[in-house]
């Protein structure tokens, strides 16, 4: 199976004292262009450019139609390399280890690439998780060894829990590296249990996220230069599965000064079949 995704992004900014919106060059990025070979029920071999499987955000929540808050967590750049992706090979899969839980894993190697938009770092890593379907709980950890520059180790933990009795979704992640460490926790609650305006309420979701970042021994361009805290609160409305209106307000606290973070967005995802498809293997 071959799959790919690329992004073209341009920010239009209204500068003080000037009328109209002004934008810079369009940023181009190949997020993944990978060839997957499903070897058996437990093993998939991937080669090419793939999203670095470190933690939970880059691995699962990166698409804008999936994430609850549109802004990236502060610790996202830890462990994922430039452009969030790796160039190399990966073995991954999931299997039912016991009747009570599933195990998923990914082992990968990435080569150094300085060619934009397919740049990547040289590292090797492993990510593993355990999913308990009855409790709707997934926990896991990631480890990575950088094979260039300071040749350091990075690690992280993640968890997702959806209680069966409440339309609540709690996600959290911790990451640690020589360039900084931090965590985020994000509860999201759907208002479907409210007894009024049920058609509207079941489509409405309240989200909050609290995150903290601590600087490390080394500096990184992608991470905040000083210790930072950020709280965000958001409201999402799902028209249908592929169409969502998102809004959020956040406040960032750091010794460089506090600032507000506003986001308004509309995400729309569509499916266009481009050819015939076979059944699952």
């Amino acid at each position, binding site marked *: *199976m071959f*799959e790919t995704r690329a992004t073209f992004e341009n920010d*239009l900014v209204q500068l003080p004292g000037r009328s*109209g*919106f*002004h*934008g810079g060059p369009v940023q181009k990025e190949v997020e993944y262009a990978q060839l*997957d070979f*499903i070897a058996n*029920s*437990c093993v*998939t071999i*991937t080669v090419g450019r793939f999203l670095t499987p470190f933690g939970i955000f880059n691995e*699962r*929540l990166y698409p804008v139609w*999936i994430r609850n808050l549109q802004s990236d967590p502060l610790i996202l750049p830890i462990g994922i390399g430039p452009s969030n992706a790796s160039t190399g090979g990966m073995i*991954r*899969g*999931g*299997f*039912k280890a016991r009747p009570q839980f*599933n195990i*998923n*894993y*990914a082992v990968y190697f990435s080569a150094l690439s300085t060619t934009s938009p397919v740049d990547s770092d040289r590292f090797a890593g492993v990510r593993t*998780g355990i999913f308990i*379907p009855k409790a*709707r709980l*997934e926990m896991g950890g990631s480890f990575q060894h950088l094979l260039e520059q300071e040749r350091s180790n990075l690690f992280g933990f993640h968890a*997702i829990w*959806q209680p069966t009795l409440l339309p609540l*979704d709690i996600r959290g992640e911790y990451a640690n590296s020589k360039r900084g460490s931090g965590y985020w926790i994000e509860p999201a609650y759907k208002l479907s249990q409210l007894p009024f305006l049920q058609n509207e309420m079941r489509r409405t979701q309240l989200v909050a996220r609290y995150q903290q970042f601590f600087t490390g021994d080394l500096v990184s361009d992608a991470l905040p230069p000083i210790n930072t805290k950020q709280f965000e609160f958001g409201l999402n409305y*799902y*028209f*249908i*599965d*592929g*169409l969502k209106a998102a809004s959020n307000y956040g406040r960032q606290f750091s010794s460089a000064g506090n600032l507000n973070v506003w986001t308004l967005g*509309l995400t*729309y995802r*569509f*499916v266009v*079949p481009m050819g*015939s*498809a*076979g*059944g*699952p*293997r």
Partner: protein
Amino acid sequence: MRRNWMLVCCLGVMACLVRSALAQEQERSDKGSAVVASAGPSTANSNASHDRRSPPALRSTASAERAQRIEGEKRFRTNCGRCHQPPHKFPSRVMATAIRHMRVRAMLTDEDMRLILSYMTQ
């Protein structure tokens, strides 16, 4: 000035997309309710006549299919529902591609994938 026009065009395209998605949704729900309304009594009759003629083996096959569908829905809610809203049911060939993509992306087990695909294409 040119940037303003670009912004207006983007907003216009987004508004059109929203409108078409909502219209599509409305059309689907209308069509679904019309099919249920028109097929209701005849389906009930055919089921009744079918039941009168069904041997126990056919009945057990039907109950096995029903159990599989329920299990598929359960697996969908447990696995896919962690990130996705309940989606429209796409045509089988689209769904087969999507589920294969999600098998790799979300590291679904083989069993989960088969049950979810069966549920999503019924």
